[in-house]
């Protein structure tokens, strides 16, 4: 038996249906089933436990920090964190702005979704553009053309410029072996660096966000969620996502064992044949190094099923940049990446 869905649209959609207004008198609350799994049993489902943990973390950070910001790319994990934030502060608005580090290598439908979401929720979006840094020479295009590693400098500049002392991210520990070592609240020095050998102890659910001038904290509310948890939650809460997460026909070619989309930053080489395939994306990132997977999962329940049956991890299936070296993610994180 599933938890009765809290109507997702009441939290995030433009036209919420039936958000329960706060009754003025005691006991006038609309009797709604408690989020108990079985009547009379005080046991929360796994998703409910994870959801409450995430909301607790988000509220702690907002209470203890002056200027939090949420890294928001329009990707599924950041969308889920935003949804959780909306639930955490209902009926108020999400009390912090969003920040997107734009590689310039975007899927157009993700940018459209990002802008639409920001508009719908009446939030402020800060955008830090890798392209600006390349244009004025502060960053140089890499030989391999990928821009994921180039995000760090614009990110750190944006954190400094916005005087953000806490930065929410949608990173999950199940994504990568370096992320598996990350704290929920991760202290970063003035260079944004992660020091995996010297992390602050994190005891019980008592998060210590103390930091000195110049330091900031990265906060990862969905640390303990798996890819499958995320998809089940998207299904349960009816959370909207960019369409490329669902099966669609696309012109692709094979490279490094992945299906790459044709596009301005991902032209096929002459030896590579372009064909139309039914694919979907498991992650969205820099278009030049993010691969699609063949899939007919066109609906959220089909995706849930597919993820449950997958024999390859999400990043293994889709990220060329993580294959550069055994410790690609660890190295990026040490440099201040999220």
């Amino acid at each position, binding site marked *: 038996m599933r938890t009765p869905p*809290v*109507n997702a649209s*009441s939290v995030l959609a433009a036209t*919420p249906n039936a*958000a329960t*207004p*706060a009754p003025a008198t*005691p*006991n006038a*609350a609309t009797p*709604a*089933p*408690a*989020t*108990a*799994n079985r009547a009379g049993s*005080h*046991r*929360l*489902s*796994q*998703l*409910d*436990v994870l959801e*409450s*943990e995430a909301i*607790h973390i988000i*509220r*702690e950070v907002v*209470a203890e920090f002056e200027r939090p910001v949420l890294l928001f790319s329009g990707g599924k994990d950041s969308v889920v964190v935003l949804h959780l934030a*909306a639930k*955490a502060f*209902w*009926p*108020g*608005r999400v009390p912090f702005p969003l920040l997107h580090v734009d590689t310039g290598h975007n899927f157009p439908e993700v940018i459209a979704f990002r802008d639409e979401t920001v508009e719908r*929720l009446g939030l402020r979006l800060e955008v830090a553009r890798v392209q600006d840094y390349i244009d004025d020479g502060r960053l140089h295009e890499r030989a391999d053309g990928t821009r994921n590693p180039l995000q760090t400098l614009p990110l750190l500049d944006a954190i400094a410029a916005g005087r953000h002392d806490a930065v929410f991210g949608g990173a999950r*520990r199940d994504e990568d*072996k*370096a992320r*598996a*070592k990350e704290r929920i609240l991760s202290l970063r020095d003035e260079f944004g660096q992660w020091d995996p*050998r010297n*992390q*602050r*102890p994190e*005891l*019980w*659910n*008592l998060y210590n966000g*103390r930091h*000195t001038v110049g330091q900031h904290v990265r906060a990862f509310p969905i640390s303990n969620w798996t890819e*499958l948890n995320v998809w089940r939650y998207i299904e349960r809460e009816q959370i909207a996502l960019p369409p490329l997460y669902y099966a669609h026909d696309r012109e692709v070619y094979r490279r490094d064992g992945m299906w790459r989309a044709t596009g301005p930053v991902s032209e096929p080489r002459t030896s590579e044949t372009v064909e139309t395939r039914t694919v979907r994306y498991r992650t969205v990132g820099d278009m030049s190094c993010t691969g699609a997977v063949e899939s007919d999962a066109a609906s959220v329940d089909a995706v849930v099923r597919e993820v*449950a*049956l997958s024999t*390859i*991890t999400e990043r*293994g299936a889709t990220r060329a940049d993580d294959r550069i070296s*055994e*410790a690609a993610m660890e190295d990026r994180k040490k440099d201040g990446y999220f």
Partner: protein
Amino acid sequence: MTQALTDSQALTDSQALTDSQALTDQAGGTLFRFATAGSVDDGKSTLVGRLLHDSKAVLADQLDAVTRTSTERGFGGTEGGIDFALLTDGLRAEREQGITIDVAYRYFATNRRSFILADCPGHVQYTRNMVTGATTADAVIMLIDARKGVLEQTRRHLSVVRLLRVPHIIVAVNKIDLLGYDEAAYTEIADAVRAVTAELGLGEVHVIPVSALAGDNVVDASPRTPWYTGPSLLELLETLPVVDEVESALEAFRLPVQLVLRPQGAVAVPAADAPAFRDYRAYAGQVTSGTVRVGDAVTVLPGGAGTVVTGIDFAGTALTEAFAPQSIALRLRDDLDIARGAVIGAAGTLPDPTKELTAALFWLDPRPLTPGDRTLVKFGANTVQAIVTAVTGRLNLDTLEQETAASLDINDIGHVTVRLAAALPIETFASSRRSGAFLVIHPQDGATLAAGIATATGVPA
């Protein structure tokens, strides 16, 4: 053989894993959190790697990657030479040194349960990270190298586990392959362990002979230890009760207030509904224990005022009741002065706030603690100044007895008295694991100095 495997025998390996995941999630299967502990090199990471592998929780690309790295590093183990420790030892430095430095969290599921596992380091230098992994654990798997028996670090970790009141302790006597699966050798160690756990006042412990390397008694009962008739490690993990759930349901309702939700016009509800929220005010937090229902009488600290719950909101849904660990927002009948740090509890159940504490500290910082030191104490949503008024003793890990101490050094388990700048409703950790724990924080650089556990409140006798 476990149910998980029996049910899925007809399926391929990959389907076995994932169908069981699907089932677990659908059934709302319980989350069970466990951590490893023990001395350096006794095989913790190898054991959890083996557990993940044998319960089909390692996906193909991960297995490829660790197989490749194992070969590159010349690992000479069995099973095609896979060093299972690489599944959790993911940092460059860990792989170079062959030790675990910080906790790795991994996630897997069987037909019965979903697990969050924290693979902790054994090295004494990284004890703080082991404490990190153990604070949230429903069970700890304490490893012992069968050739070495109980070591100082074993006693230290067992003491931590006792201090933290981790509900279940599983002792895995590992590397039993190196003792030729000898029953007598195993029994000797099992007896020695039971003697130590009894001395520490730990309750029931489950002792299992295992070989992480060869997989004996990890997922399936091993034919090489016919003399052992107990459950495999996985069977235990799948069936141990979630004590936290039971305990917190029995305790009185507590909600530490994280923040006050008072949108004052800046609402995220449709314009038509907005007027209903003009005066909305609710107290947001995560229920730490007990159950609250609309209409319940509650007390609020500080102040001790009584009022009544008029609503329990969860993001647009009105609940009739809420329980731990739900994150909710409470509406109350009376306009009270309630801010972050307040605690709302079932009427008449809250303790008197206290400025004087007697506590056990697990000291985690290289800088020693001496009496008179000024620190911060973080309890729930409160952070207050504190002075350590006395160090009254320290645990001697050889004798497991208290000895006198003038200061506490890193990795010491000590006893102190503390004076707080403001009274807090701390309870003893013995009465509630959820309302008796606190952090000791450095007032200048913000470092977490110690895990604190209240043993008594009020002025010491």
